[in-house]
């Protein structure tokens, strides 16, 4: 009854239970944080804009992204994955989401940033619908906790236009 194996088993079970409860509490504590991030994005220039031989439009642009995501960080935050996506509708597709830039923010100190970049991923449409197209730029963030539930949110910035002609 009180053998070594029995005691070791009881200790291990108890330790695992406590650890699971602490992880659950840590994950729950994230929901008490109500973040208020801010972001601004400017399209500085269209570098080039053309139709590929396969019939898909492709555009390259230079962006200026500034954001303050410091309020997303809590003690249970491992990192914040942030990305900027162009979102628009076309006659064939009710939604197109194209990631243009992304980054991993590992700590609160560098969560307030400004970056000047051309699009990291290719902005290619499924078809040839980009001339004069109005699109939204949406900054999405996905918070990765040290343990527990992940959560995500976004900030939509609208009113961006692509040029009417290829260049």
């Amino acid at each position, binding site marked *: 009854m009180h053998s070594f194996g029995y005691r070791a088993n009881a200790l291990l079970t108890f330790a695992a239970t406590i650890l699971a409860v602490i992880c659950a509490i840590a994950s729950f504590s994230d929901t008490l944080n109500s973040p208020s991030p801010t972001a601004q994005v400017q399209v500085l220039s269209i570098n080039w804009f053309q139709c590929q031989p396969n019939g898909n439009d492709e555009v390259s642009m230079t962006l200026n992204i500034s954001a303050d995501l410091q309020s997303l960080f809590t003690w249970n935050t491992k990192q914040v994955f942030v990305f900027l*996506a162009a979102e628009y509708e076309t*006659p064939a597709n*009710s939604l197109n989401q194209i990631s243009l830039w992304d980054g*991993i923010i590992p700590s609160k100190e560098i969560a307030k940033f400004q970056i000047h970049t051309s699009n990291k*991923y290719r902005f290619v449409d499924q078809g040839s619908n980009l001339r004069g197209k109005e699109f939204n730029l949406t900054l999405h963030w996905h918070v990765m906790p040290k*343990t*527990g539930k992940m959560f995500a949110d976004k900030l939509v910035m609208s009113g961006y236009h692509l040029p009417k002609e290829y260049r």
Partner: protein
Amino acid sequence: MDWIGEIPESLKSIKIRRILSQAISFGLIVTSALMIWKALMCWTGSESPVVVVLTGSMEPGFARGDILFLHMNKDPIRAGEIVVYNVEGRDIPIVHRVIKVHEARDTGEDYILTKGDNNDYDDIGLYAKDQLWLQRHHIMGKVIGFLPYVGYGTIIMTDLPIIKYILTGALVLLILTSKD
């Protein structure tokens, strides 16, 4: 000297009872594990509700040995979500992030492109030959939460199968020799 003849008889009946009761408790362990797994499958809607990360392609978010909890529902898949997908001709499912989505207006079908956070290139090279997009039927689930390190045992067992056999043997021995 007539007690010699009696002992084997009583020993035999005790032995049979013990073996029966051990077989039942062993069966209980196996069936309750199976029940929990199946219940999780129903609850999350994913054919594999818990997966272990096998590669470092999502570092520093997910490392080898982390456990991921999956969820699958009717909601459309959106950019930024981390999905687990299967590609024809590959045995092992892949955990990567969605970077592009095109949703067809007439069918509602999503055409998805994924990429690992720690990889330099998107996943077109990982897909089947001539496959440009993932579709819904490739997706096993979306990642909703994770526990670090817990799955490392699985990785050790895949890397060194001998440990798996030793552990299984020890466990079976323990169950068969336990007194309660």
